[in-house]
């Protein structure tokens, strides 16, 4: 019955013409969004003569794996073994995500569930910091890094990621939905705050973890440690990829292959976690 009612109201407020034109708009804009990506994917499988074809063609005619083979060849000859670049990126991304999820959740729990002096104020500052981008603090950040001795180590990229404000913000909003009765019951049973956080709150915010993970992953996977990391053997996959892409005409095919590999990882991750991420975002109100 309920279902029928919904169907009927839907029909009342929707015109066929409207549906059609909005759907067309969606398709046109969707192809604008996706065509460059399709072009990028196809380029990775094009033989060199097809990449430099006039007029250019979106889709590949004779797909080949040559570009990937060339890539492996090229990497075999590089000064720093390619596995090192992979390890660097995986290490930076993994550590950054782990630390951020732990620290941001620990900080979000009291902000969401307790009332204490200064709590509101601290949260306001985090919200304020969403309003400006990292470029503003780039120069003092460098000085601070060099005081602590983080320059030319992984930590210059990893540790600031721990304190990424958007993650704390989303986590706090999500934690507010946990029913208080659950926490109170645990408290009456004699659990300490830390125990409550670890055994009750954390398992309940798994969807929010995933969101934090994908946001951080995006940020760290694409970071090249620019300005902080100078040693060749500490540089990231992204840096190596950029060097290959910068190789110019002769490397165009290999560059496309690298780009495809780099972009497929975050997209795959998103596909598998989409529904959970949307769940977290649903709570992302800019309330104060």
């Amino acid at each position: 019955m309920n279902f029928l009612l919904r169907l009927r109201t839907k029909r009342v407020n929707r015109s066929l013409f409207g549906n059609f034109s909005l759907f067309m708009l969606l398709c046109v804009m969707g192809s604008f969004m996706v065509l460059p990506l399709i072009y990028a994917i196809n380029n990775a499988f094009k033989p060199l003569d097809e990449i430099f074809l006039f007029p250019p063609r979106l889709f590949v005619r004779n797909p080949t794996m040559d570009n990937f083979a060339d890539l492996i060849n090229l990497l075999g000859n590089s000064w720093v073994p390619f596995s090192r670049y992979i390890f660097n990126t995986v290490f930076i991304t993994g550590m950054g995500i782990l630390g951020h999820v732990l620290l941001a959740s620990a900080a979000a729990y009291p902000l969401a569930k307790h009332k204490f002096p200064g709590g509101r104020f601290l949260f306001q500052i985090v919200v304020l910091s969403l309003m400006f981008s990292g470029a503003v603090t780039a120069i003092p950040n460098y000085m601070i890094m060099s005081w602590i001795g983080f320059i030319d180590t992984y930590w210059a990229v990893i540790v600031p990621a721990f304190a990424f404000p958007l993650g704390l913000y989303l986590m706090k909003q999500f934690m507010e939905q946990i029913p208080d009765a659950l926490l109170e019951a645990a408290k009456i049973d004699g659990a300490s705050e830390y125990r409550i956080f670890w055994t009750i709150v954390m398992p309940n915010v798994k969807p929010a973890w995933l969101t934090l993970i994908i946001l951080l992953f995006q940020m760290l996977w694409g970071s090249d440690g620019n300005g902080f990391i100078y040693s060749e053997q500490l540089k990231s996959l992204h840096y190596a990829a950029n060097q290959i892409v910068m190789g110019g005409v002769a490397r165009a095919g290999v560059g496309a292959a690298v780009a495809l590999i780099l972009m497929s990882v975050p997209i795959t991750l998103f596909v598998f976690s989409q529904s959970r991420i949307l769940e977290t975002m649903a709570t992302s109100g800019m309330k104060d």
Partner: protein
Amino acid sequence: MRQSNLQDNRSVITAGEPSPQPNSWWGMKKNAIKANKHSYILMAPYMILFSLFTILPVVMSIIISFTYFNMLEFPRFVGWQNYIRLFLEDDVFLIAIKNTLLFATITGPISYIACFIFAWIINELSPKWRAFMTLVFYAPSISGNVFFIWLMIFSGDRYGVMNGFLIKWGILLEPIQWLKTEAYIMPIIILVQLWLSLGTGFLAFIAGLQTVDRTLYEAGAVDGVKNRWQELWFITLPSMKPQLMFGAVIQLTTSFAVSDVSIYLAGFPSVNYAAQTVVTHLIDFGTIRFEMGYSSAIATVLFIMMVGSNLIIQKLLRKVGD
């Protein structure tokens, strides 16, 4: 409401312990802090790092902006000199400000509205299509530095996709140096920036639309809501106010911070500074010329621009539906 409940319960639980009756405001605060020491301990690691890498740099940036500092000598106090030089003597900075405001006023609102409209249309699709379309629109912003693909599209020779097609269709006879011609640089960067801009805000909108109470639409239909536009205006938008705020902050902040796309596509420096933004100007003075005082002044101006415009937008949005 919820928080105050928890508070009451805690006082019930801890009532057994003898505690000295607070007699002053400070005494009460002190007791409250003591009672919540677990909260502070849980928050400490994050907050220490947050202060170290976000709050302290902002404060430092403001202080350094009043000095002459080249990283070698001790900073020398120069008062407002950096700011005076910035606004009165630095022609390139004025170009950068102009470009940045152009970005913020074009890509900010357009990306914001686009985020909402696409999220809104996608929300009407069946779940499978919804997931697919979300991916289509979100993929560009998530896939890292793929905007180099636009470098191939707007490449200056006839193998560039844009030139290739325009020549094939007979619109052009000669290839155009898209990214080396002043007039085309900004529009192209704006286009690419828009392509990249359906990110976190877009996801928040999609999710927010799914949480709007279905029964409101039914009630609306009974009350005489005639078409989808009225439904949007009277029911959907007011129910999504929190997400609208969140999206506005995210979109505006990113549109003020354009630099990667500009540097990557138009080069650094770009032809006749046509693609200079406040951030690229800051990078120029900070990492190439080592004028730290001056670049901190640029950073401070940018900080004020970003936070100021965000607060104004929030104030405006808060009025929607009141």
